[in-house]
Each structure stands twice: as structure tokens, then as C-alpha cells.
């Protein structure tokens, strides 16, 4: 079986500074794969390249059997790749309902969209209660729920989540992590970027540790969680 997403020898630079230096990894359908690592490791750059916001220097990306490089960002979501960006980036002056509708921008099935909006409200009831409120008035955790819900609205084959736990209270973080598990159970494939290595690795089928633009270690979530060097570097143990 071929992987849903296959990244080979990807290199990405900002000007002369190479942020991603020749990485390769793949994501099988139905899996949660996580990229962990510190700030500046190149995780966000990798996701932004996958969704077409950045152009790579070299390498290949195959998604669902098609090459992605050169496809403009607004076409990539149509292929089934959704991206919930770092820092949430909800549309602050649009309502919650409008944000969710924008997540389904390319879909034409009005009824299906209404149903899926309801599904997001079931997943995150607070969003339903505030549907007509400007999204900028939501708390950080609620905005994160909205960003995830919005990404789900395109019915993606692969959902990319960038730092969903960033800036959240521990309770809120647990909610988000539980939701990610639920999404996996319902069959969504997820590529998760996290600084919270503990949380990410306990959910993930596979993990890759990134350091200054390279993948330095790969394994199953459980393996990495018990790996000594990972524990030292990312789980705050000495």
C-alpha cells in the first residue's frame, strides 16, 4: 500500500537560510503522525510547504498519488489536504459560523455543509452557542477549536494541525488532545506538529524528531516516548 502523503528529500529556504534540510517521511491513511522538536526546528515550515504557502528548493511531495509541488495553495485544499495553521489564524471580524463556512469554501453541497457545521458544534458545543459572534472575541482555546473545526469543514483526507496546544490551559489542552483522538477513531488521518512532545507522542502512531531542519530520530510514538535522548531533550528529564 502506498502512503497517503510521501515527502522525499524536501528542502526549504527563506532567502539564504535553509529551514528544512533534506527531510523525508510519510503518512499512511488512518494514522496520526507527529513532528516534534523545538522552536526553529522547521516543523511549521514543513507544513506551510505541504499546503503550498511556501515553495521548496528541492524534493518531492506526493499526496494521494499526485505531485503537490507547483500546485498553488488554493488548489491544494481541493485535493483533500487541510491545514490548521500555527497561531490559529481564525478570521477575527467574521462570525464563528462564517469562519466555518469559509472552511467549506470549495464545497457545493449546501446540505452537507450544514450537517458538517452541526458536527463541529457537537464536537465543540461552545462554538454552537456563539455561532453569531465575531470569532475575534473567542478565548485562545475556543479559537483553536474553531481553527480545527474550520479545517475539518473541507472534509480533508489529511488534516494538518500546527501547534494545537499552544498557549492553552492544561484543561483546554486535554480537550483538544481528546478531540484529536476522536478524529482518528472516526477515520481522519492527521499530521500533528507539536512542541508538547509528551502529549503528541502518546497519541501518535509514528513520530519524527526534528532538529534545526533535519529529522534526527523516527519511530513509533511509544518508542520515542521511551527513548532516552527524547526524554532528555523534549520531556524535561535529566
Amino acid at each position, binding site marked *: 500500500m502506498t502512503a497517503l502523503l510521501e515527502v522525499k528529500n524536501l528542502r526549504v529556504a527563506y532567502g539564504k537560510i535553509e529551514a528544512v534540510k533534506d527531510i523525508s517521511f510519510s503518512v499512511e491513511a488512518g494514522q496520526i503522525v507527529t513532528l516534534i522538536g523545538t522552536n526553529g526546528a522547521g516543523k511549521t515550515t514543513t507544513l506551510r510547504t505541504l499546503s503550498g504557502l511556501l515553495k521548496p528548493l528541492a524534493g518531492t511531495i506526493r499526496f494521494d498519488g499526485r505531485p503537490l509541488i507547483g500546485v498553488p495553495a488554493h488548489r491544494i485544499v481541493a485535493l483533500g489536504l487541510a491545514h490548521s495553521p500555527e497561531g*490559529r489564524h481564525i478570521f*477575527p471580524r467574521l462570525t464563528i459560523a462564517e469562519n466555518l463556512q*469559509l472552511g467549506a469554501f470549495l464545497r457545493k453541497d449546501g446540505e452537507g455543509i450544514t450537517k458538517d457545521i452541526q458536527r463541529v458544534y457537537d464536537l465543540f458545543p461552545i462554538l454552537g452557542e456563539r455561532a453569531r459572534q465575531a470569532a475575534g472575541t473567542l478565548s485562545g482555546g475556543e479559537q483553536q477549536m474553531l481553527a480545527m473545526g474550520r479545517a475539518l469543514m473541507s472534509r480533508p483526507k489529511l488534516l494538518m494541525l500546527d501547534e494545537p496546544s499552544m498557549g492553552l490551559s492544561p484543561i483546554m489542552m486535554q480537550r483538544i488532545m481528546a478531540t484529536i483522538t476522536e478524529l482518528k477513531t472516526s477515520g481522519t488521518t492527521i499530521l500533528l506538529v507539536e512542541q508538547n512532545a509528551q502529549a503528541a507522542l502518546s497519541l501518535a502512531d509514528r513520530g519524527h524528531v526534528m532538529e534545526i531542519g533535519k529529522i534526527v530520530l523516527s519511530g513509533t510514538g511509544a518508542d520515542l516516548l521511551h527513548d532516552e535522548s527524547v526524554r532528555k531533550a523534549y520531556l524535561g528529564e535529566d
Partner: protein
Amino acid sequence: MHQLPQTLVNGLALGALYGLIAIGYTMVYGIVQLINFAHGEIVMIGAFGALTIHLWLPGDTPLPAALPLMLIGGAVASVAVATAAERFAYRPLRNAPRLAPLITAIGLSIALQQIVWAFYPDAKKSRGFPQFQGDAFELAGNLHIQRDDLFVLVAAPLCMLALGLFVARSRTGRAMQATAQDPDTAKLMGINTDRIIVLAFAIGGAFAAVAAVAQGLRAGQINFEMGFILGLKAFTAAVLGGIGNIYGAMLGGVVLGIAEAAASTYIQHIPGMQQLGGGGWKDVWAFALLILVLLIRPQGLLGERVADRA
């Protein structure tokens, strides 16, 4: 004081005209943070487009029948030039330093003026523009609306209403708001932001053409330089109202128009300021108002402080 209602009506007509042009500045700024200083020339091009249609039509075509065709002609010219400017002048500079597109805009503005001056027949001097025949409508004892002002007083609210509904209710309008608020994330939703940007220029161009026809009717003549002061005033209106906000642009236009009309009417009656009143000083007062508003409320009347981006 008995002149007040008439001053308001005159100011409203002038302000509605400014507001229509200001929409073009504010829409483009809202989406690409670019001040299109060539927008005044887009108005001028629209006026010549409308005049061209007028000259093509049989000489005895009544103006009410010619007007819709002139509007279409003006809009085609304005929209074509505005979108071509976006595609060939501004888009290649989208990631360049801010100063580059600004200088391009000024260059484009001069180029468009000179092209019309050089190639439009008899455009080296002013060209006559058709006007409605007949007396002004009398609303009340001393209150009149010029026939030529009526056009803009009807057209501007209709245009605003249509634009407001389009932006708030349509799928494309929502995509436009999303692009203005966060262009990269808009792309992630599947929005072709390049097309949204072209659309912003096109809407600005269409509104400019309506304003151009209104200006032609009011003045009875047009010329290749007309875009300069109109553009500057409309830019003032856009800033006054809060740049990026379409209702702010119209409000800024109306406030500016009324202030100008009031300054021309009243300032000469203030003891000691006789020589500062009258029509010749109206531009001074318009820009003085801009300075005042910027001192007190730098974000403009309806502008928001840019702090709500998480």
C-alpha cells in the same frame, strides 16, 4: 442660516461623488495594503470612456437614454485600466518594499494622464460633457437640487447598498473579507486570492466610472488632469472615514463634501476671515479637516485599531 439646507444638499452631492471614488482606494488598501495613487486617473479614464460613447451615439439621443450606455462605456474603460494596472504594474511588486508600488502608482498616474493628453482627440484642452437641460428641481421654498446633482444622489446610495450586500452576503464577498483579514489563511480555505485582488480593483474601477460620469454632468466638461484633485480629495475621504472600511469611505466623502460646501458658504461671513472664504479656499479647508481628524482620531472615523490579530 437660511442657506443651511441648500449647503447640505450641495455638500451631500459633492460628498457622494468623493465617496464613490474613495471606495476604490479603501477596497484596494483593505486587501493589499496598497494606496493606488493612480486611482484618480482611473476616474479620468472613466470620464473619457463615457464621453466616447456619447460621441458615438446619434446627436439627438436624449441624455436619460444615453446615460446608461455612457456608464457602461466608462465602467469598461475604468475597469480595464484598473485591472491591467493590477496585473502588470502592481502584481509583480507584491512582495517588494512598500515604496516600490507607491512610486509605480505615481508613475502610472502621470503616464495615464499623458496618454489621454496625447492620443484622445482634442484632449489637450477641456472637452465638453453633456448636461441635463432644464431648471433645478425645487424641493422647498429656497431649496434646489440641480438636475446634474440628482444623478449622483441616486447612484451613490444604490452603489453602496449593492456593494454592502455583496460583501456581507455573497460567497465571493465573504472570500473578500477573509482575504482582507488574513490572505495566507484565505488561501488555505481554497480562495484564489489573486482573483479577489483583481476583483477589488475592478469594483473600484466601476465605482470610479460612476463618479466620473457624475463629475462630468456637474462640471459640463472633463479634461486629462481632472483625476488629480478628485483623487486627492477622495483619498482624503477614505482616510477620514478610516481606510479599509467601505462605509467609512462613503461617510468620509460625505463629511468632506459637506465641510467643503459649508466652508465656501460660511467662512466669508466670519468677521476677519472674509478673504479666506469662497470657493477658492475650499481645498484648504478640506485638507485642514483631514489634518484635524488625523490628530484627534488617526484611525479615521470608522477605522479600527489594528490590534485584533491574535
